[in-house]
């Protein structure tokens, strides 16, 4: 990926962040911190990597994506809207009665959503099932999933961690959003899931460590995952919770609380400034 494309993607990702915050602000509930930390990888997947078509969201040969950390739906909705699956304006209705944009992703009701998630640990298993389906049907679509680092505390994650290498699901790539924070604080203090990379290696995965906010590095990790045969890949993404909104960065308090009007306006102003800065680089 060239530097120019990385800048273009960074601009889109910051628009996605704005959409996510707008949804959470309007709903006065939701999960901004982890939404902001995964905006870059979601943008990369939907705008550069995945074989998907917003006009044909049910195409059986498409690549699949499962947001195992389903509470960060605002970022996924923002990405899907920006990609053209549904109108950006609809995000304003997030979490409200009458809106199809539920608090957590839901299958069959939201264009572009490949699986209902929200209960941690389940999405990654479902994604493994999709990857297995591709193998059984001898199809070459790929399956991607994002997990939280706190989510790794769910035992079911490790059931799938055994499953995917056992069935040699090399069409399966997971991203661990390693922002180091969960609701109750520092992941190593709440229930230490580290060392994450060594655990996945021991379970038989191809493990790559990457900067969650560096498009070229993430893109190269995905390319390396595609090239790796016989093993699934776990990309451990070093990320910043609340990325690109100064007062939300690295603060667990923003895991699941909505900004007030003043905070929202400041966040949008900061993201607009970031976008302007990036556009000036093009």
């Amino acid at each position, binding site marked *: 990926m060239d530097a120019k494309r990385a800048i273009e993607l960074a601009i889109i990702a910051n628009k996605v962040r704005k959409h996510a915050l707008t949804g959470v602000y309007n709903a006065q509930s939701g999960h901004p911190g982890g939404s902001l930390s995964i905006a870059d990888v979601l943008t990369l997947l939907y705008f550069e990597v995945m074989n998907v078509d917003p006009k044909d969201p049910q195409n059986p040969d498409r690549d699949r994506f499962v947001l195992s950390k389903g509470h960060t739906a605002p970022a996924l909705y923002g990405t899907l809207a920006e990609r053209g699956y549904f109108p950006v304006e609809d995000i304003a209705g997030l979490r409200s009665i009458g809106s199809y944009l539920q608090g957590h992703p839901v*299958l069959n009701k939201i264009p572009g959503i490949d699986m209902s998630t929200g209960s941690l640990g389940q999405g990654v*298993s*479902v994604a*493994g*099932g*999709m*990857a297995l389906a591709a193998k059984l049907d001898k199809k070459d679509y790929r399956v991607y999933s994002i997990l939280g680092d706190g989510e790794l505390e769910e035992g*079911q994650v490790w059931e799938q961690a*055994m499953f995917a290498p*056992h069935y040699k699901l090399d069409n399966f790539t997971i991203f661990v959003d390693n922002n180091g924070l969960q609701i109750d604080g520092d992941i190593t203090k709440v229930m230490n899931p580290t060392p994450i990379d060594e655990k996945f290696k021991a379970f038989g995965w191809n493990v790559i460590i990457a900067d969650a906010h560096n498009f070229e590095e993430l893109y190269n990790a995905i390319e390396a995952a595609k090239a790796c045969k016989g093993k699934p890949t776990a990309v451990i993404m070093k990320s910043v919770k609340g990325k690109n909104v100064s007062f939300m960065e690295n603060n667990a308090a923003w895991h699941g609380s909505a900004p007030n009007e003043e905070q929202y306006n400041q966040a949008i102003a900061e993201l607009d400034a970031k976008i302007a800065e990036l556009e000036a680089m093009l």
Partner: protein
Amino acid sequence: MGKTATRISYGNALVKYGDNENIVVLDADLSKSTKTDTFKKVYPERFINCGIAESNMMCVAAGLATTGKTVFASTFAMFAAGRAFEQIRNSIGYPELNVKIGATHAGISVGEDGASHQCLEDIALMRSIPTMVVINPADDIEAQLAVKAAIDHKGPVYMRFGRLAVEDVNGPDYKFELGKGVQLKDGSDVTIIATGLMVQEGLKAAEMLEAEGISARVINIHTIKPIDEEIITKAAKETGAIVTAEEHYIMGGLGSAVTEVVCANAPCPVKIIGTDRYGKSGKPAELFKEYGLTAENIVAKAKEAMALKK
């Protein structure tokens, strides 16, 4: 009439109806007991062992189903409906995926393994999932046809099979209709509504009542959800007293489902026969006797229900 454990019927039906390339069967290291190994022998390429990891298995089943497959996921009832309840609820029921849960070793007829393995809550748990169909077949042919019906039905289905060999209730020409109860014997004084292996006991009880001059109707409810409201309401109106019988906890199972219908449509006395506590080790016949899952107890409760008639 033959004697077959419905788990055997399940394995045979998977082979019988499993020639469809779209069908995938999953198990959690119990394929020899759940009898999915019968399918595995014929279609090894479409059998996936998930190891002892039921939560993951249910979600893998969901993932496969999102791609259009019809997926059977099997383990003991305790570890399907019990351990993996939330996976079934959130990853199969909520997205309405085409996953068929083949749960074997349900009820106290598991016998010697004892309470930890005798699932007596599964009907209640599965019935509480809005999109779930719940089937509890009584014999071999019904179990096989339930598998066929599950394949034909689009959406999640829970099928409850037993470990113990049970006598045939239905003849070879039996037609299975999802959601429809089966009246096995007409009667006017009381109705015995039974499910699973208690249907056989219900028929025996009706004979015993007949000998005492009491006319008992017998209804087999194989589909506990959606339940056949019509046949139950008609029985309540025409006989005015009901006794239900199931190899399940008295709360939340067939008895609860029947009372929900009766109370809403045609109130009449309903006595519920089922277990009222955890199971324990023992031979199935000994356990049935100790827990009151017998024709004799059905007779006694039928009389109690009749005595309450206005």
